[in-house]
């Protein structure tokens, strides 16, 4: 068992847990929590492959993670603003109640 395998196993389970959260939760904010977990699993993969992979003077892995973190922060800000807007209309963040487009 190498460090690379450990990190990849960690990120595998982290991604699965995030997916489970997205599929089982009904609260929109907690679905966002699951999305954050999945993004972090991807970041762990990038760092693992950079650290224990072929030589990389351009730092592709860490910089990809840097951009990914910036975009994840943007996504969280817009997502939470949208959830706040929905909450103002329906007084609820339960996604099962957002069925006004349901024919």
């Amino acid at each position, binding site marked *: 068992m*190498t*460090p*690379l395998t*450990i*990190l990849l*196993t*960690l990120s*595998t*389970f*982290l991604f*699965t*847990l*995030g*997916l*489970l*959260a997205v*599929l*089982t*939760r*009904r*609260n929109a*904010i*907690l679905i966002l*929590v*699951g999305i*954050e*977990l999945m993004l*972090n699993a991807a*970041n*762990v993969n990038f*760092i*693992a492959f950079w*650290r*224990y992979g*072929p*030589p*990389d003077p*351009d*730092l592709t892995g*860490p*910089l990809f*993670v*840097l*951009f990914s*973190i*910036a*975009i*994840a*922060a943007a996504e*969280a*800000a*817009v997502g*939470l*603003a949208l959830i*706040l*807007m929905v*909450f*103002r209309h329906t007084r*609820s*963040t339960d996604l099962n109640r957002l069925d006004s487009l349901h024919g």
Partner: protein
Amino acid sequence: MVWTRPIGRIGRIFSLSYLSMTPLLILSPLILLAALGAVWKARPVHAALLLALSLALIAVLYLTIGADFIGLVQFMVYVGAVAVLIVFSLLITRPGDEAEELARRPRSVVTGLVCTLPVLWVLVHVVSRLGNLPAGAVENPVFSVAHVGQVLFTRYAPAVLVVGVLLTAVMIGAALFAREPGKKPQCPSDS
């Protein structure tokens, strides 16, 4: 920057010695336990705080394996901003009671597992076949913040500009979304 060096050196000592895997073996179960709590806890605030714990432990993991700068960024952005943002939105929205969530749980967990386990199986299968990789023997050296800056503003300069535009757009958009409709924004000096 000088202050990132000691952590990096510790990381290097750990990774070069026989003990290289000990911090990973300690941190990984902790991260997974915190993430499991974030998925499982019925009370939303507990879930959000456990997410913050999990993200902080991932930052520590980055520090341990030598990605110091990324670890610090992770700590500042994820733990300092995203997790706090999530906790505050939970405070604002007053989520429903957890009894409803617990009543719905058996069904939703079965559905979730049916959809998740195939994904888990594929990922574990792929990771278990990694033995064929030629890499693994080498370890990239710990990088300095100066190196990050140099690469960031030469090779990746277009991407930095795009991310800057994205963040500006997001800031304006989020402020527009979160504004009370019908209320005129007021300068504090006007009131």
